[in-house]
């Protein structure tokens, strides 16, 4: 394969998984929700896009519909468990993802094992593959930018502060009149919508959709991005997405010189990496930064009074 195309391909994947990582960061980093079934919403977005684009709906509407349908699914799955302990949510969403994969695998409308082929979003007649990929990079990074702005605004707004407060101390937040289940459901919906959008982008770039693309490993690749880059830091998770995708491409390139199957090696190293990060740097490469408020500025740059409590 032509190395330039390979590099551009990498850039597209970084963008797409950057969006998924941002969405997981909203749920896990800011709201403390363990979404172990991220791939389920990715799948919903992907199949919604594929099915709608088959009947000739323009790609922008397909992408939006993918996000919306994923958000609805996110709400439905999370409702029974949001008031319970986080581990129940983790188990039920994980199970939900596996079931969705079984459904698209065995139902004819979703193409079964063979999947569905998807027309690319934007086609330019007579253009070289490089131009096609460049167009995709534009589209993906436009969506990534929107998601990043939304994530940053959410994180640094009063709303984001409530969400973090619920993460850090449910009881205290509830005592202040914040309904934790409501906030969690909202964050879960927004996160699922972003994952759905990314799913749509993914299939339109690859031009096909298969049940085998949505194994639980996808979820955990995204978890590695978030944990490595830094939970609750949007720049951090983007860095994490870049590093993880580079690593994946690196091991694929090194395939001929490795003694064991690179897929096995990749997963073993990913597992080891997660455990090392959890041991030695649970806050990730980039730490959670304090929210920018007037009070914080005053404390930091004002009279030189150092007050750690205010920076929380």
């Amino acid at each position, binding site marked *: 394969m032509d190395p330039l195309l390979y590099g551009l391909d990498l850039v597209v994947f970084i963008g797409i998984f950057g969006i998924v990582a941002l969405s997981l960061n909203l749920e896990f980093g800011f709201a403390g929700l363990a979404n172990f079934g991220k791939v389920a919403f990715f799948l919903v977005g992907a199949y919604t896009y594929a099915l709608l684009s088959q009947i000739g709906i323009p790609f922008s509407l397909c992408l939006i519909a993918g996000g919306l349908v994923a958000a609805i699914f996110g709400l439905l799955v999370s409702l*029974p468990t949001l008031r319970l302990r986080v581990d129940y949510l983790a188990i039920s969403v994980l199970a939900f993802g596996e*079931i969705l994969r*079984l459904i698209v695998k065995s139902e004819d409308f979703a193409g079964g094992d063979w999947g569905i082929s998807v027309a690319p979003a934007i086609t330019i007649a007579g253009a070289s593959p490089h131009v096609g990929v460049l167009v995709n990079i534009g589209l993906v990074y436009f969506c990534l930018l929107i998601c990043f702005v939304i994530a940053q605004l959410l994180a640094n707004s009063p709303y984001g502060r409530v969400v973090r407060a619920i993460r850090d101390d449910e009881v205290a937040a509830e005592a202040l009149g914040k309904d934790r289940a409501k906030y969690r459901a909202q964050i879960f919906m927004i996160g699922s919508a972003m994952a759905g959008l990314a799913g749509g982008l993914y299939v339109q770039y690859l031009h096909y959709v298969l049940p085998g693309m949505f194994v639980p490993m996808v979820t955990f690749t995204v978890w590695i991005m978030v944990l490595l880059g830094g939970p609750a830091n949007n720049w951090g998770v983007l860095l994490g997405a870049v590093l993880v995708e580079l690593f994946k491409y690196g091991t694929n390139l090194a395939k001929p010189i490795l003694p064991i199957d690179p897929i096995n090696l990749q*997963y073993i190293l990913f597992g080891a990496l997660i*455990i090392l990060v*959890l*041991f030695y740097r649970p806050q990730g490469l980039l730490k959670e930064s304090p929210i920018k408020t007037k009070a914080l500025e005053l404390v930091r740059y004002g009279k030189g009074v150092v007050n750690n409590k205010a920076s929380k």
Partner: protein
Amino acid sequence: MLGAVGLTMTYGLSGFPNFAHAEFITLGAFIGYFVADQLGLGLSLAFIVAFLVSGIVGFLCYRGIFQPLAKRGATIIHLMVASIALGFILRHSIGAIWSWRPLYFTTSWPAFDLGPIRVTGLWLLLIFTAVTLAFVMHLILTRTKIGKAIRATSSNPELALASGINIDRVIWITWFVGGGLAAIAGIFRGADTQIWPMTGWDIILPMFAVVILGGIGNFYGAIVAAFIVGLAENIGVVVLVALGLSTTYRIGIAFVILIVTLIIKPQGLAMLFRRA
């Protein structure tokens, strides 16, 4: 059921769902295959070796990873992620050693007809083993000192510690036994169907349904729940066929049970066994 009992005990004692439990099952199946078929030493030895190996791996995982992580203040989410990461390491190490092709036990089982049902010797052995082990576990939990210590630690770790119970040791033993039981479950599963690195992962979700329906950490609840989930799956398959749906939705039945339990009674059947 054998797998779920181990899972519920480690879940109850350590306070987080160990997703790598699936890999203890897989490991057990492969060790069993290695001893029984590749070395040709027979199935009874396979059970013993698999129990020991998976048990030791279970103990080492807890001692080497989960316990130090918990001591560093890892949250339940971190522990869950670590267990999944560990699962990947184990699963793909197994995949690298034995490859991803499905393997089959060569032992053949006598089959005979019991009325309209065809029964194999394997199933009889499975039923016999499950009942025996459940009975033995019951005796251990109620009659011996370590069993009482396990139950005490499960219901209130601080109080158990204050009563002079070495709770670290209790949890280690539980992880050992949990891993060992998973291995036995793995051999049966492998002998009944096939062995490949996903053997454990294929049944982890029904097992979580059993654990939650039975009440986390509740041994008797898990046994009853295992029967309920098992029955529901088999009746469900008949219903699915009648409805003209694919039988791959079988796993969905366990999921429905899981969700319904969470909505109606998150503590599961535990209220039936308050003293257990």
